[in-house]
């Protein structure tokens, strides 16, 4: 039997390619070894065997072989508990550095129910869960994401000690799970490139851009709720968003180079906070990073585009992320 050939160092070297989803736990992927308790149990059995041999106690033999047989059979039960489980997809919403990235796994049990399966990512608390048969399950594993950029939590570990706790069956899966991590927002004044003066939205003058109504545009996801033309909607004419024109002078350009912060990471954090601030006031703003300029605009897509540009600033490893954005692994 294939699974009896144990592989001891199954940490998953980085050179191995990522597996593609959906992924089924197959025979070759599952490893089984005794747990610490399993080794103790084997010692107890050996003591029982020696006692039985010495005392020529046939019931002792019977008990020893019964327990040995049960431990042996439990290997197959552990194995079966994992075999055929499927990971259909994995996804995580972008987070800010310092927050916890929540990886959502879609797990299918197929026709067998699974008991006490422990699922974990490195540096995350493991989740022990029962899965019903023929059901798709969502599993959320939060992991601390401390670094701006693309966060890869590492290999997913699926393990079980069910039923007797004497053997542990496990499989490490090099999933292409990733989460976009925006810089941690650093609060401060809103500084723009063309306007050296501070534009403070909270205590200063009103932001004019939100004032001048121009036209109705059909609603798009992400438009601020406050701008929805409720009256139009109540007349049953559909969902429209009131478009406003900001005054020419209020178009803000958030410029990386204009910031006086001591290093790039702080500058990015400041920019991040400014983007959030600008968005909350529905300002039209643009972003200027060394080598990249995003034209002024507003709305949710624009916000995400800007934050993503901050997250990936000076980060080369974007290939898989792009692929993901194209929808390959996205649910």
């Amino acid at each position, binding site marked *: *039997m294939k699974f009896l050939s144990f592989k001891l160092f199954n940490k998953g070297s980085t050179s191995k390619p990522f597996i593609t989803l959906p992924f089924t736990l197959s025979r070759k992927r599952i490893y089984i070894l005794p747990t610490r*308790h399993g080794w*103790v*149990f084997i010692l*107890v059995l050996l*003591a*029982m065997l*020696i*006692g*039985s*041999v*010495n*005392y*020529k*106690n*046939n*019931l*002792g*033999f*019977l*008990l*020893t*072989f*019964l*327990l*040995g*047989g*049960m431990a*042996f*059979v*439990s290997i*197959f*039960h552990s194995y*079966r508990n994992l*075999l*055929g489980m499927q990971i259909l997809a994995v996804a995580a919403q972008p987070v800010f550095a310092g927050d916890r990235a929540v990886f959502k796994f879609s797990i299918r049990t197929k*026709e*067998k129910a699974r*008991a*006490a399966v422990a699922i974990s990512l490195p540096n995350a608390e493991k989740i022990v869960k*029962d899965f019903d048969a023929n059901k798709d399950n969502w599993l959320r594993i939060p992991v601390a994401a401390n670094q701006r950029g693309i966060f890869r939590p590492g290999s997913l570990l699926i393990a079980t*000690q*069910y*039923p*007797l*706790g004497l053997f542990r069956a496990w499989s490490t899966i090099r999933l292409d799970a990733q989460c976009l991590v925006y810089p941690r927002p650093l609060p401060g004044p809103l500084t723009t490139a063309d306007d050296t003066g501070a534009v403070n939205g909270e205590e200063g003058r009103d932001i004019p851009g939100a004032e001048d109504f121009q036209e109705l545009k059909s609603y798009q996801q992400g438009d601020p709720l406050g701008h929805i033309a409720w009256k139009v909607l109540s007349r049953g004419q559909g969902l429209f968003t009131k478009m406003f024109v900001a005054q020419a002078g209020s178009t803000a350009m958030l410029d990386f180079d204009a910031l006086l912060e001591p290093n790039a990471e702080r500058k990015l954090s400041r920019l991040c906070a400014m983007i959030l601030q600008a968005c909350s006031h529905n300002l039209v703003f643009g972003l200027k990073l060394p080598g990249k300029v995003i034209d002024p605009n507003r709305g949710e897509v624009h916000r995400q585009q800007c934050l993503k540009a901050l997250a990936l600033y000076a980060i080369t490893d974007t290939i898989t992320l792009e692929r993901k954005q194209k929808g390959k692994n996205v649910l």
Partner: protein
Amino acid sequence: MKATDKKHLLPILGAILLAVSPHLFRLPPWIVIWCLAFWAYVLAASKNNWYRPGRTILVILTIGGFIGGLATYGFKFNLDTGVGLLAVMLGLKPFEMKTHRDRMVTLFLVYFLVITNLLYSNNLVMSLFMFASVLLATAVLIRINHPSGSFAANLRLSGVIMVQALPMMIVLFFLFPRIQGTLFGMSNQSIAITGIGDRLSPGSISKLVLSDEIAFRAEFKNSIPGPDRLYWRGIVFQHFDGKTWSRGQTRPVRQAPVSAGSTVGYTLTLEPQGEKWLFALDMPITSPPMARMQNDHTLMAYRKLKARIRYNVISQTTYNTGDFKSEERTALILPAQGNPKSTALARSWADTFDNPAKIVNKALEFFSQNDFVYSLNPPLLKEDAIDDFLFKTRKGYCEHYASAFAFLMRKAKIPARIVGGYLGGELNPYGNYLIVRQSDAHAWVEVWLPARGWVRIDPTSAVAPERVEQGFEAALPPEELEGFFLLKHLGPLQSHLKKIIFRWDAANNYWNQWVLGYSYQRQRELLAQIGINIGSWKGPVKLILLVLGLISFFVFLISMRLFKTPVAKTDDVQRCYVKFCAKLTRVGLTRKPGQGPVDFAKTAIDLRRDLEVNIQEITDLYVLLRYARGGDENALKKFKERVKEFAPKPTI
């Protein structure tokens, strides 16, 4: 206390209690109270959030318990001490079950506790106990590894795993190499032993009569000899010191009784008696491999028998032992002093009769005609015990009669000796074997007569002939039977009870023979039968291959069961729909793999407008029944009917 602790406490305590239960009658009372009190407290404390002792107090209690244990048992480390200390520890263990590790270790201790029980007793009840205890402990083990399941499910899985483990257990039990002798020279002394000892004095047989314990079982290859022939010979007593008879010197011989009588072969399963003598019908002519024939026609084992053994013997029930041998002169020796009246009586017979056979008859006559009483409660005998018995008390059990008779014979210059063993036995109709109990213990006399050799004389039969024919219960006066063998007084229930008891004993007997009696010797025989000679170098290789082969086979069977992909349960709905699809396939409308029913219906209807109504209706019903799970019996019935009626014609 965490909720999980509470959840696990009761099942673990249950497993411990079941495993320790046979010990409760063996353990010193204070340890029993110690355990029960702590367990009751820990259970109540978990319910009511009472105080739970901290680590320091537990350590103090443990040390106190160990000191108490050592004070009770002394400093000898044997099985009793081990079990006692284990119980002391388990009494405190439930206080310290906060982690998964603690709970696992506790359950390992429970398994260990089970095996300690087996060292004390190994009958069928104990075997059943063993399986029950393992079943429960394993269910609890599953529970602590899978806390969210129901306990019934835990028990069921435990049972499944146990059943799947049974074939492997059986293979290893029979084929795991057994050894001769013990590993460290330790052996098991704890099994209580009763049986006929190496001394015979008034009371030594009658005390056995009160025991209903089984001495041995005998299976006969052919018919069972009549009750007057069922004298099971065990030990011969040669020396008499005026009160007690003891064994004399014997030496191994190869000779068999001189006789042309018919032989009877049988297999005896002897319970351990802690002595060397094996029992066999008068007279054994073969000796089993673990014993040697002695010159007094007894079978003497090489070692004291501490485990149940099984052996074959052939006996001749009519025999002639031939000439008197000089070494048998001890059969004439008596103490010079004492018992003057008996001596005078014997001398007078010797003077009157010239033929020893006549003296024997005279003596038997003396017993039968002088109001001797067969009794379990004879009066105490004073100095000159034989005189006292023969002329004063005249009340006694078989050892009194045998002793007095042998004494008289020796005084009359006839060689005589006492044989200790069992008489009779009870036929178990469900196994066709005889059960011989300790209560069948008996003592009789052998005298040497010219031309006939050693002849069995049972003086008890002169006093109470029923003893030989029907067993001691028939021979005893009714008032002496009160109190034991209540079975006799149960009236019509008795026969039913007797049946149950016989069946139970038959089960015990099979278990003893096939499981408990399995040994090095029988393993060799078994292996020889399947062509494995463990002596040659090929033997072990073949044995290992056989074991691996069998285990692989069972693994294969288990895997088949565990890993078979349940063919997506084709329930009624599914089966019907498959039928419907097959009908459509016949007219050229094939459902593509992975195509949903609604999609398939659309494609089919596009191609065959004429079938639109039927296809649509069946598909709607199917979707309702299968996906919306909203269908009831009527919908199912309708669905089946529609599919049955559906008969699309091929397009021309």
